[in-house]
């Protein structure tokens, strides 16, 4: 076996691969199920973006909190939320992560530091500041991570949060997952600055842009900014330039994309394929080891889907529970 040139042990590399494959299988399964009419409501898929969530989350523990987006399944899986409970939630079942009362856009597990996917774009940024504030107040070394897309990077909540985090020197990382499209509108139309590094500078915090399809670029840069935040060095903005394999939501025909664009990103910018090639070509893992993980991920998602489909819906009495702690 060749010497490992990567910043992660072989075991950790396989963990990263497993997380990314699990997300991909999960999202592709949802794509299929949605097309069959099995899933109620809106679903926004993270396929194509796995390297970003995975590369960042590998630096976190349960005491670190993330505030996610409407495209939150990948963040949940990478943060350790149980896949079966996620699938059941998306199918609207009582065994779901939120007892079927949240759905795809609101999966949360506070015990894992997952403060929720969020149906309101940009709304997670102030919440992540609150997580950072709580960590700083307690002095427990935790960090808050705010995820937004390139679209929500224009929200007032996000921009106010950059300033607040800088003013209070909070341990918060603002991750901009720039997949090039805010729904159907291209990033270059809707974001006035060319570089998010410039936008961060305008708010008095360091910014860095990485190729979000390159797991290692994300992993290493996220490690630096998270370490700095933990050590009291304050907030940072991390832009991950990435690609979205499916539409804004399921059912989106993606007529706004250029000719051949989707084929090109799937062929040349698939973060999982790129990651697999790197680690196989370096001789650190074998294709067989990856294939085993592929099979296991597929099996896990198959079981999760079967579980979700056969699980009972919430009882009617659930309509009225958990509005308040006490009322």
């Amino acid at each position: 076996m060749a010497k490992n040139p990567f910043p992660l042990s072989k075991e950790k590399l396989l963990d990263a691969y497993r997380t990314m494959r699990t997300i991909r299988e999960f999202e592709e399964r949802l794509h299929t199920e949605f097309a069959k009419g099995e899933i109620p409501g809106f679903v926004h898929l993270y396929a194509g973006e796995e390297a970003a969530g995975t590369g960042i989350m590998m630096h976190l523990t349960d005491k670190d909190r993330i505030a996610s987006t409407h495209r939150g399944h990948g963040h949940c899986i990478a943060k350790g939320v149980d896949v079966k409970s996620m699938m059941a939630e998306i199918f609207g079942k009582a065994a779901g992560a939120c007892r079927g009362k949240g759905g795809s856009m609101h999966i949360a597990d506070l015990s894992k530091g997952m403060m929720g996917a969020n149906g309101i774009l940009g709304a997670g940024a102030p919440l992540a500041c609150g997580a950072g504030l709580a960590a700083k107040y307690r002095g427990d070394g935790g960090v808050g991570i705010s995820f937004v897309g390139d679209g929500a990077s224009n929200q007032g909540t996000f921009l106010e949060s950059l300033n607040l985090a800088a003013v209070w020197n909070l341990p918060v990382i603002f991750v901009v997952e720039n997949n090039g499209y805010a729904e159907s509108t291209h990033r270059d139309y809707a974001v006035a600055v060319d570089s998010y590094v410039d936008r961060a500078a305008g708010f008095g915090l360091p910014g860095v842009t990485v190729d979000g399809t390159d797991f290692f670029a994300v992993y290493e840069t996220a490690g630096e900014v998270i370490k700095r935040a933990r050590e009291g060095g304050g907030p940072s903005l991390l832009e991950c330039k990435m690609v979205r394999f499916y539409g804004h939501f399921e059912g989106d025909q993606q007529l706004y994309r250029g000719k051949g664009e989707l084929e090109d990103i799937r062929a040349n910018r698939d973060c999982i394929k790129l990651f697999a090639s790197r680690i196989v070509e370096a001789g650190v893992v074998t294709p067989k080891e990856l294939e085993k993980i592929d099979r296991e991920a597929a099996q896990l998602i198959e079981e999760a889907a079967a579980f979700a489909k056969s699980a009972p819906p919430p009882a009617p009495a659930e309509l009225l529970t958990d509005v308040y702690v006490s009322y």
Partner: protein
Amino acid sequence: MARKLSMRQAINEALDQEMARDPTVFIMGEDIAGGQGGQGELDAWGGPLGVTKGLYHKHPGRVLDTPLSESAFVGAAIGAAACGMRPVAELMFLDFMGVCFDQIFNQAAKFKYMFGGKAETPVVVRAMVGAGFRAAAQHSQMLTPIFTHIPGLKVVCPSNAYDAKGLLIQSIRDNDPVIFCEHKNLYGVETEVPEESYAIPFAEANVVRDGDDATIVTYGLMVHRAMDAADALAKKGIECDVIDLRTLSPIDWDTVLDSVERTGRLVCVDEANPRCSIASDVSAKVAQDAFKSLKAGIGMVTAPHTPVPFSPALEDIYIPSAAQISEAVQRTMGK
């Protein structure tokens, strides 16, 4: 031991005592200390009307002045609450809800339900409400009904210093998000307030005057107008129950219904605009549950369906008066 305290002092004392009792309690808002970053005094203001004065030096690191960024800091308070803290965020004027409402009604109010019961958000948002301060349309509103409409929020609006202290302490200890509404024209009004800490439970209205002829239901500053009206009516031989709701969500329906079942007449008084107000809410509940007890149509005295005007000549007639309340009660008696 009780002494006379203004509502401003009572609120300050509640914050002080709760911060001393529980290390997870901290307060944040614009200029709640004041003077940050300048060359003059720190705690220069202690809040725009001096409510938090003195707490900055008493509780180092726990009185956080914020940038003028209501979405960011109210959201940060909510996020910190979801992470185990008990923040009290001061929104200054409740009118500013327009620039942070998403954090309150789509985030804090919904976490418990939307996350399947697994999240708790013990945050308090304090804010000034009400007209009479010559502060015009964007600093004077009584927006309580907007918050009572939202499941997941609790809404409190005290009428006096004693209640303000006990209800704020309860709000901070409560495990749900609470909107705590402070009428700016009551800050200077004094009542007896015990020095020791005490909590007033929610959904326990206060019957501040007893009478068998009619029931007046209200809250906040209007409790004082209703009492003035009841005094005037007593001179005419009409005795009123005056009910101070104290908390608007949850609300003490039993006390309201029991009273109306006895008096048979109801006047709802609300400083809010009339449509979908606390007054219309109470009217609907009584019409639904105590219709047979009613001897007359329900009276409502509210602000008109207009913004709050600036000119004192107009603002004074915008705010419901004791005379209007008195007339409304007499109408229910066919007079």
